C-alpha cells in the first residue's frame, strides 16, 4: 500500500484542498510548518514529554475479562484513551497542534466542537500555554453538552453558540471557517478530527497515531502477537485513524463503526460511508450525506461527537480499497453497549465509544477465545449522563 496522502493531499480520489483562495496561503504555510516539525527532534521530544507528564500517557491496554467472558468469544482489549487528561483521545491532537501553532507564532486559536471533547481539549491546551481560544459549537450541542461548555469556559475559552443550519457540528465548522477566513493572519484553526483540507487529515492522523503505536507495542508484549481485529467508532474518524494507522501494513482487520442513529432506513443517521455519496464538504472530497442535488443533509446521532454528515478522507480511501470495513450501530444499540461495558467492567464509555463496544458485542461471540479484538476506548461517558438519562426516561433531579 503506497504511503498516503500524495503530495497534494489526496488519498486516492479523496481528500485534497477544496477551500477558498483566501485560506490557501494559510493551509500551505501550515503544511510547510508541519513538514518541518515532523522531522524536528526537539519538537517531537517536547510533544512526547507533554504527552507523558501532562496527558498521562502511555494509556493502558486493558484486558476486559468480564466483558470477554460475557460475550463468550474473542478476548477483548480496551485501549484506555478515556484515561487521558480531559477524558478522551482528543487531547493528543490538540496538544500536537498547539505546539505547532506556537512555533508558527500564532497567538489566537479557534476550534469547532460537537460533543465538546475537542473543545475541552483545545481549551485545556490553550490554558496550558496561555493562548486566546475561541470555540464554535452548534447551539443544539451547547444544550446537549452543557457540562463541557462549562468546562471550556472555566479554562478561559470563549464558546460561541452557532444558530445557523442544523445547529450542530457541521454548522460549527462553517462558522469556524468564516472566522478563519476573516482572521487568517494571526489565527490558528485547530481542527479536531481527520478532516478539512490537507494537511489536516494527515497531521491529525499522525498526532493520534500514538494510540496505535502504543497499542501495537502493548499487545505484542502481552500476547506475543498481533490482534485479529481493531474496532473504533468513526465520526470524523480521528480515534479510528489513530488506532488503525500503525497496523495498516499488518494482517489485521480494521473495523470502523459509524453512527446509525435511528436506523439507516430512517434517513436519521450519521453513517456517511454506509449511506452517503462522494462529495466535497469542508475542504475535502469524501463520503457526504447529501441529497441528489448536492445539498448536505443534516446528520443525526445520539452522540454529538459523531453527529456529522461527512467522514475523514482517509477512511473514505480505506473503504474504497477494502482495507477497512465500515458498519453502522444505532442509537439504541450504542446505549446498550454503554450499559454492557458499565456493568461488566465498571467503565462508563462516551456515547461515541459505545458504538464501538456495541459492534464488539456483535462480533466477539462469533470469534474464538484464541482471537483478539482491540477496541479504542476513545472517551469517558461523564459528559453524556444527561443525554443518556433522558434517553432512558430517568430524571436526574430528585
Amino acid at each position, binding site marked *: 500500500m503506497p504511503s498516503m496522502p500524495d503530495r497534494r493531499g489526496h488519498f486516492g480520489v479523496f481528500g485534497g484542498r477544496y477551500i477558498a*483562495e*483566501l485560506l*490557501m496561503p494559510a493551509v500551505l504555510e501550515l503544511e510547510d510548518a508541519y513538514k518541518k516539525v515532523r522531522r524536528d527532534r526537539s519538537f517531537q521530544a517536547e510533544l512526547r514529554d507533554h504527552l507523558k507528564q501532562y496527558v498521562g500517557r502511555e494509556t493502558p491496554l486493558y484486558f476486559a475479562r468480564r466483558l470477554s467472558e460475557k460475550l463468550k468469544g474473542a478476548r477483548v482489549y480496551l485501549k484506555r484513551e478515556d484515561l487521558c487528561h480531559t477524558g478522551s483521545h482528543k487531547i493528543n491532537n490538540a496538544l500536537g497542534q498547539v505546539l505547532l501553532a506556537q512555533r508558527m507564532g500564532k497567538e489566537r486559536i479557534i476550534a469547532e466542537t460537537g460533543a465538546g471533547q475537542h473543545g475541552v481539549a483545545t481549551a485545556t491546551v490553550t490554558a496550558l500555554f496561555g493562548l486566546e481560544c475561541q470555540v464554535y459549537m452548534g447551539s443544539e450541542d451547547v444544550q446537549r453538552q452543557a457540562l463541557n461548555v462549562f468546562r471550556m469556559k472555566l479554562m478561559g475559552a470563549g464558546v460561541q453558540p452557532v444558530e445557523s443550519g442544523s445547529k450542530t457540528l457541521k454548522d460549527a465548522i462553517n462558522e469556524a471557517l468564516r472566522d478563519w477566513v476573516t482572521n487568517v493572519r494571526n489565527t490558528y484553526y485547530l481542527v479536531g478530527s481527520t478532516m478539512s483540507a490537507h494537511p489536516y487529515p494527515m497531521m491529525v492522523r499522525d498526532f493520534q497515531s500514538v494510540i496505535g503505536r502504543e497499542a501495537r507495542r502493548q499487545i505484542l508484549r502481552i500476547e506475543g502477537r498481533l490482534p485479529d481485529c481493531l474496532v473504533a467508532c468513526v465520526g470524523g474518524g480521528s480515534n479510528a485513524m489513530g488506532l488503525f494507522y500503525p497496523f495498516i501494513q499488518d494482517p489485521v482487520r480494521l473495523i470502523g463503526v459509524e453512527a446509525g442513529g435511528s436506523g439507516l432506513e430512517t434517513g436519521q443517521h450519521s453513517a456517511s460511508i454506509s449511506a452517503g455519496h462522494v462529495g466535497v464538504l469542508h475542504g475535502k472530497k469524501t463520503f457526504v450525506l447529501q441529497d441528489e442535488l448536492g445539498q448536505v443533509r443534516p446528520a443525526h446521532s445520539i452522540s454529538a461527537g459523531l453527529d456529522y454528515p461527512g467522514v475523514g478522507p482517509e477512511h473514505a480511501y480505506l473503504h474504497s480499497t477494502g482495507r477497512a470495513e465500515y458498519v453502522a450501530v444505532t442509537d439504541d444499540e450504542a446505549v446498550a453497549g454503554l450499559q454492557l461495558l458499565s456493568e461488566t467492567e465498571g467503565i462508563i464509555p462516551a456515547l461515541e465509544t459505545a458504538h464501538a463496544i456495541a459492534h464488539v458485542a456483535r462480533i466477539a461471540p462469533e470469534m474464538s477465545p484464541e482471537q483478539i479484538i482491540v477496541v479504542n476506548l476513545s472517551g469517558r461517558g461523564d459528559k453524556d449522563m444527561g443525554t443518556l438519562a433522558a434517553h432512558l426516561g430517568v430524571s436526574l433531579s430528585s
Partner: protein
Amino acid sequence: MNRIDARFRELARRGEKALIPFLTAGDPDLATTRELVLAAEDSGADILEIGVPFSDPTSDGPAIQRSAEIALEAGSSLPRALEMIADVRTTSQLPLVLYGYYNPIFRYGVERFAADAASAGVDAVLVVDLPPEEVDELLPSLRAKGIHFIFLLAPTSDEARVRKVLRRASGFLYYVSVTGVTGAAPVQPASIRAVVESLRGQTDLPIGVGFGISSPRQAAEVVEFADAAVVGSAIMRVSDEHRGTQRVVPEVASFLRRLKDGIRSAPQG
C-alpha cells in the same frame, strides 16, 4: 465571442467601468429572480453573478447565507438555476457568471454541468471552494465549452500564487478586497489600489473588485483603479428589506441605478 469578453471590450471602448451585481437564484423564488435579472440589465448591470444556493456557504456572510437558505426552502437548486438562465437567455444577452460551491456541481456531474451550463447560456463559472490546486477537475470541461472559470485573488495571495492564477485565468480577475466573508467589512480602496495596479502590470485581463462594496461611493472609489465593482451582500440587504412585497424588484433596480451612477461619476483612472 464570450459575452463577458465582448462586454469588457465594449466598455473599454466607451471608457466605462462595469457594475457586477449578485443575485441568488431563487430568492425569494425563481420567477422573481428572473424578473430581477431583467430589471438588473435595465438598471445598469454590465455583468451579473447568479448565486446557486448551497447548504454550507462557508465563504459567505449573513446576508448571502440567509438569501441562500430562503432560496433552498423555495426549492432552488443548480438544475433549476440553469433552467432559469436558459429562460432569461430567450430575451437577454446580459453576460452571466454562475457563482457557487463545488458540491452541487460535482454531484450534477462535471461534464454534464459544462454542457448544460453552455447550452443555458452561462458565460463564466466561479466556484469559491475550487482553488487553483483543485481546479483541473472542472476547468478543462468548461473551457471546452467556451465558459470562463473566474479565479479569485485575495490580500493573502503572494506573488507565486498570483502567477499561478494568472497562468490559468480568463474572463476577468476577481480581487477579494478584504480578508473575510462576503459583506462583512467595508472595502478600504486606498489599501488595495496598489495591489490592483501591480496586477495590472502582469495581466491584460479586466480586474473586478468585490467583497465589502456596499455604497455608490465605494463603487466609485474602487473603479478609479479597477475595471469592475462586484456588489453582493448590499443588494441582498435591500432585497431582504422588501422580500415578499411588490417593492422588491423596483427597490433592487433603484439601488443598482444608484450604484451605476456612482461608477459613471468616478474619475477615469
